[in-house]
């Protein structure tokens, strides 16, 4: 895990874990810590934990092997979580109705796609205004 710089706006955290479901909890932990750092309250932190879990699990289940990479940053007033993992040729991302319903509730905006040989997601949540 690395930080692009150490303080305030523009801070970014990058994390890589094996693309395996048992490591998604580490992504949840990191997201919780970062969300707290950016000033989200307990309920919002829980929403972001669920969001990153659902998105990470979805792309990991499509990934053949390799690493799940995560980048957490602030982008234009939004808390932004991006993730990607290599996807086996010919495989597609499957998002069922239950997962989509949850993501619609916990993200302001999200995207799941396959591009450049990787399954990718982006999740945005407006930063709290204090």
């Amino acid at each position: 895990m690395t930080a692009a710089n150490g303080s305030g706006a523009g801070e970014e955290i990058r994390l890589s874990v094996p693309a395996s479901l048992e490591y998604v909890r580490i992504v949840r932990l990191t997201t919780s810590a970062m969300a707290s750092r950016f000033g989200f309250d307990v309920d919002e932190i829980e929403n972001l934990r669920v969001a990153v879990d659902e998105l990470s699990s979805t792309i990991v289940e499509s990934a053949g092997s390799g690493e799940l990479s995560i980048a957490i940053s602030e982008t234009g007033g939004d808390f932004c979580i991006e993730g990607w993992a290599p996807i086996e040729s010919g495989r597609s991302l499957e998002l069922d109705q239950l997962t989509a319903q949850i993501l619609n509730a916990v993200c302001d905006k999200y995207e799941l796609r396959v591009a450049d040989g990787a399954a990718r997601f982006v999740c945005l949540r407006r930063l709290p205004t204090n």
Partner: protein
Amino acid sequence: MDEQAVGPDLVLSVDAERTSAVVAVRGELDAYSAPRLEDEISKLLREPFDAVVLDLSGTGFLDSSGLRAILSAHRRLTESDRQLLLRAPSEPVTRLLEITGLTDHFTVEK
């Protein structure tokens, strides 16, 4: 009581209360750990319990996979004329049930 650790973040413990099996789900029920709950339910379906109570008071995290495991348990028990009850669902569990509109789908033990 029968207790098993499902990886570092989930412990399932099973106890008998009269004619019910109580499964305490302590920790995080997610895509990685949810299959173990399904396995436990499969084992309990072979036992002569009238009901399975899922004690969710210690469930610190639940996602769609965990929720699907609970829905599957409900369906399988109902199909065998038995009941699934939820006991003391934690805040994360309650939140996900509200988000998905499934609050009234389950019987919460009083």
